[in-house]
């Protein structure tokens, strides 16, 4: 079993190295859609720019033209977004900026998840320790269920049937 584990580990390592070191993607040409997914249309539809297909929308068209012009002037995605933020305010962004108070929205879920995972690990370890200290005689159930309960039931029924 140990040898099998070692072989398997080696194969995993080789595959992971392959995944890590194969050449990275070439940079693609920037399109207005690439930038538009980070911006919200200002017609009140609350959609990201490429998703606003409303005939009555007076904002999406000029915004798209503006982005195309900025791309034409050689601006990159971050520069275009910064320019839009300056013109329209923070509400033009499809997601909060990653600085200042807004950072709490980005970080809080991951902090909660990590803190929760650590707390859960500590609680689980306490439970396991208490269980070991209590010993098997004090437990409500002592059977270690390694196998599928369905298979066990099936085997019991077959034994009864054969008997």
């Amino acid at each position, binding site marked *: 079993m140990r040898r099998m584990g070692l072989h398997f580990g080696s194969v995993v390592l080789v595959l992971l190295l392959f995944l890590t070191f*194969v050449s990275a993607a070439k940079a693609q040409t920037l399109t207005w859609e690439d930038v538009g997914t980070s911006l919200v249309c200002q017609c009140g539809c609350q959609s990201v720019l*490429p998703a606003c*297909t409303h005939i009555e929308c007076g904002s999406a068209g000029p915004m798209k033209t503006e982005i195309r012009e900025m791309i034409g002037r050689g601006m990159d995605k971050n520069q275009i977004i910064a320019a839009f933020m300056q013109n329209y305010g923070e509400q033009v962004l499809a*997601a909060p900026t990653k600085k200042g108070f807004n950072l709490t929205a980005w970080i809080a879920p991951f902090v909660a998840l990590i803190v929760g995972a650590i707390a859960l690990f500590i609680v689980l370890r306490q439970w*396991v320790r208490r269980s070991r200290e209590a010993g098997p005689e004090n437990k409500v*159930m002592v059977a270690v269920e390694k196998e599928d309960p369905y298979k066990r039931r099936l085997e019991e029924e077959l034994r009864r049937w054969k008997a």
Partner: protein
Amino acid sequence: MADLGYISLLLALVLALYSIFAFIIGLRRTYPELIRSARHAVLAACGLVLLASFALMYSFLTGDYSLEYVASYSSSDMSPLYKFAAFWGGNQGSLLIWAMVISISSAILVSSKVKASSLQIVAVVVVMMVEAFFLLVMAFVSNPFARLAFPTGDGRGLNPLLENMGMFFHPLTLLGGYAGFTVPFAFAVSALITRKLGIEWIVIVRRWTLVAWLLLGLGNLFGMQWSYVELGWGGMWAWDPVENASFMPWLTATAFLHSIMIQKRRGMLKVWNMLLIIFTFNLTLLGTLITRSGILASVHSFGASALGPIFMGFLTLSLLVPLWLLFSRMNELKSDDELDSLVSRESSFLYNNLIFVAITFATLLGTLFPIISEAVRGVKITVGPPFYDQVNGPIFLLLIVLMGVCPLLGWKRATPVNLLRNFLYPFALALVLAVVLRIVGIKEWYVLAGFSAAGFVIFTICVEWFRGVRARRRSQKENFLQAFFRLIWANKPRYGGYIVHLAIIMVALGTIGSVAFKAEKEVSIKAGDTVSIRQYTLKYESLSRYPVGNKKDVTSAAFSVYNSGEYKGALSSSKFTHVNYDNPVTDVGIRTTLKEDLYLILMGWDPDGTTAVKVLVNPMMAWVWIGGFFFLAGGIIALWPDRRSSMAGGS
């Protein structure tokens, strides 16, 4: 008829209030006659709510436009089918549907032939309190039978966006799911009040929760499909506040359905399960608050109304009272058992619960952050898809991996042999899949990780299924198909669960595929021009305009579709304009295959015939909807009564 409807609502309210007091006094003073009378009041209240619903339906079908609600959501030129669906097209009707589901649930609860325990009676009292709240709202704040001061003789008509088959499925399943969580919540509160904190309430609520969870899940899927075909933006989920509101209770309910298995088997997680169901119910109320208060902008909301503060008050009450009860019973909610190992199905379920709650928290934070930002900084911001993709995406990935790990770990303790035996091949295959995908040219890490994790789950389920079938074939001498289906039938909750897992994986694959490999093109063209996207060429044939009835106009752009030069048929997209509504509605053209959808949106046209269209290729979209069918099938199998457990009194 409308007056009869309103009187029915008032009488149902009186009876609901009577049943609450009669149950409480009957239970405290051991007065069986009063309890029997209260049961009859519950049944009568249900009958009256059904009568009120019938009266509103009758008013819609017969065109009683003197009623404000009927005049706002229907008109004489509408087909009877949509007049029927207009019932739940607005605020008042959807509240009536909610009350109807609760009243039917309460009637089922009191109709049980089993002698009612105090747990059951108090649960009915809680259900009736919720029902009374909804009746009170309809009777005095949001009356579906309110009359217009100056009737106009005809109605405004249903919002054209709602004239879609989705209108028959999405609102009903969603509202059914929302209202369905009232019963599990009521039993949790009842268990806290009566101090019957064992597994009795858990056994009762499992099936109720499963039904509500299934309905809410289907409601979300129907909503996604509706959004995809009707909103005309090319996607199905935009992380809109109202979409989030219906997603959050589904997440916590999924966590609850997993963790009650541990309480049922081991007597553990009593406090956690209470918290999950209390929050699930309150998240449904929060969803209602968001949809009806106008506090957050959404394309799905009913618009601002006076219901916001009322729902806020009720939400505060239904959150704080159970939490206070839970706190006061903390000493009685200690676990019956301890954990044997850090690596076991129990511990993996707990981590799965943690992830569900983390996604709920992230979604709630994202939904409310615009309000928080405005309150703290005085700056209006938007929290849209890029936020959720970056925050929820990685957490979802963890969830998918755990989805593969959890079912194959043994209860109590997973040994190294157990781990190696169950995970060796699935893990190796997932890794090989990642390498193959990388070789064929997929470079985005999230696509590689998502597809490999999904592959891992599929492989673990297949391995587990294969072992079960092989065991049956050997022991029962069955052929492969017999063994396969009897395996499912012999353990419905387990294999129903696996099918639901497969469904979620299909939805995940469809979602990742449609985002990662999407192609889109916006063009302005004239008749005879072509537009090419990937292997498709679309030839613009014509633009036509025609009226539908006397209130709607349709402008339709027709195209011929060629796939790698081969003619595949016609595709068209239209815009509907309604005289009573400002904004036109898009009817998109979709050509679906298992590989991808070709999606056409008519955006606009000029008098000279120049037409603006958007064409998208959305890969793997069909798998999302196929996943929906699997979700339904798995849910029904898991829900199906087991003869053995029914006979034993289990669920």
